[in-house]
């Protein structure tokens, strides 16, 4: 893996290289270089399996992290490639031409984080949420409690009571 990392540092200026564990390396690369890097790894270095694409919201620094995990099934190595994009202009180059299932991951990330992947097949179709028009739900600033209170409570005809008092009132109305 050391030779490979040296090569990637020369060719794609990868940085923050860390050993996550045995046979698994984390590295960071500029977002614009991700498709070229993944293509190189797939065609020339044996990383032919895309395990997953994931996203992390770092709201405090105003960035989204996209993580591409690729695997070399022959040498049993993993690479976790991280790229950071701006939260304000959340858009990333699609890699659907490299792997058949990449478009599914991208479609889900578009829905859950609002990160666009222009050109990715069916990227604008809803994946889980039909007719969702609120903030993308996996963003850190989406307030789940507020959303559920506004959407589901209070329903007409529904009242809430303190269980102890309510039972006392029903079962022993005369007791003080």
């Amino acid at each position, binding site marked *: 893996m050391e030779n490979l990392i040296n090569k990637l540092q020369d060719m794609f200026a990868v940085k923050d290289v860390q050993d996550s564990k045995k046979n698994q390396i984390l590295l960071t690369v500029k977002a614009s270089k991700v498709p070229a890097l993944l293509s190189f790894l797939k065609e020339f270095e044996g990383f032919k399996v895309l395990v997953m694409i994931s996203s992390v919201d770092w709201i405090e620094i105003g960035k989204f992290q996209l993580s591409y995990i690729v695997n070399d099934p022959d040498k049993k190595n993993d690479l976790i490639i991280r790229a950071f994009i701006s939260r304000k202009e959340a858009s990333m180059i699609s890699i659907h031409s490299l792997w058949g299932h990449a478009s599914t991951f991208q479609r889900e990330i578009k829905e859950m984080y609002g990160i666009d992947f222009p050109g990715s097949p069916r990227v604008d179709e809803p994946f889980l949420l039909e007719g969702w028009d609120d903030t993308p739900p996996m963003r850190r600033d989406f307030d*789940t409690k507020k959303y559920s209170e506004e959407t589901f409570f209070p329903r007409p005809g529904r009242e809430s009571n303190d269980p102890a008092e309510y039972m006392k009132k029903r079962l022993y109305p005369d007791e003080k």
Partner: protein
Amino acid sequence: MKNNLTSLLNWNTNRSNYPEMDADGNPIIDLESQKFIKVWQGPNHPGVTGNMSLELTISGDEVVDSKTHVGYLHRGFEKLFERRKYIQCFPTCIRMCVPEPDTNEYNLAVGTEELGGIEVPDTAKWLRMLALEMARLQVLLRMVPGQAGTMGLGLGSQWGMYYRELILDRFEELTGGRIYHMYILPGGVRGLMPEGFDKRLLGNLDKIDGFIADIDKLIFSNAVFKKRTIGTGFIPNDWVDHYGITGPVARAAGYKRDVRKDYPYLFYDQLDFDYNIAQESDVFARFEVRRQDLVTTVDLLRQILAKMPRTGDIRATTPNVLHWKIPKGETYVRVESSRGEYGFYMVSDGTEYPRRINLRGPSYTHAVSVLEKLLVNSNISDVSAIMVSLATCPPEIER
């Protein structure tokens, strides 16, 4: 009259160019032409897989286009994890896959231990292996005959449920729970084997041996089953890496892929077993691989019981789990589930709460990208058989 009838019956069997495709490779489907109809399979619970629907476009009895729709089981687990401490994620994460919850527990535990720098005692590792293999066994006992159930051969499924119950009884004894076990927690496991447990489990395994012989006669020798599964749902070899296919589906296409062998975890390197491989890559081959997996799992359980220590530490010393700050870091952990590689991508930001836990289940590709392509040009009556042969589990797609 006779000639007309013959020409009607001898239709052109080469359907690969039908319907016509546009320049982007999408089928040209005009519903107004009355040559096509839309049929929805699901989202009711079909029995083995879970709530998911397939939007099928049919011409005659042939599927010409298919789209997977998920979201009927979405409970926002990954969002919930971000608001919970690691130990609070532990009883939540198991709900992400109902048939085989133990793989979730294991991944969460191992990910937390890797990021937190905890080493687990050996006895706990053996017990984890025991729980994982028992979980695999109970899934396969339901899934192997369940494959025949999709074609109307329901008897095997009924028998399978009985033998699955035997393993669930053992789970109840070991963990207190039948379906959700909450046994493998960060730092170790919750308890040792109760007295006499191994004898009862071995007795169950002997019964299951007899059951495997029975399903060989009932299903493998069944002409209807063979005729309907051989050649159905064929997955070409080049799809395996292109779509990230794993587990029994990849092994049925001749690929040696098994996390237990490729990335040995726990003490799997001390056990004697091999990849179960087939070459044909159709529904029958996948069924055959799972049947072999069933035999292997029974054998592995016997090996584990013979080798594992009966006493010893089962929990490592961890910080107070309610105030446990996990150091900043990222990891991807994987385990071999009955359906294939099952992984967690975990990111910690140095606080008591996980920043991100993302599940990558085998169904994510099998039931969406692969199934949508695989169903095209298949017969509508084979749809459920193909879907089950890919071991679809919708909760792990939508989390």
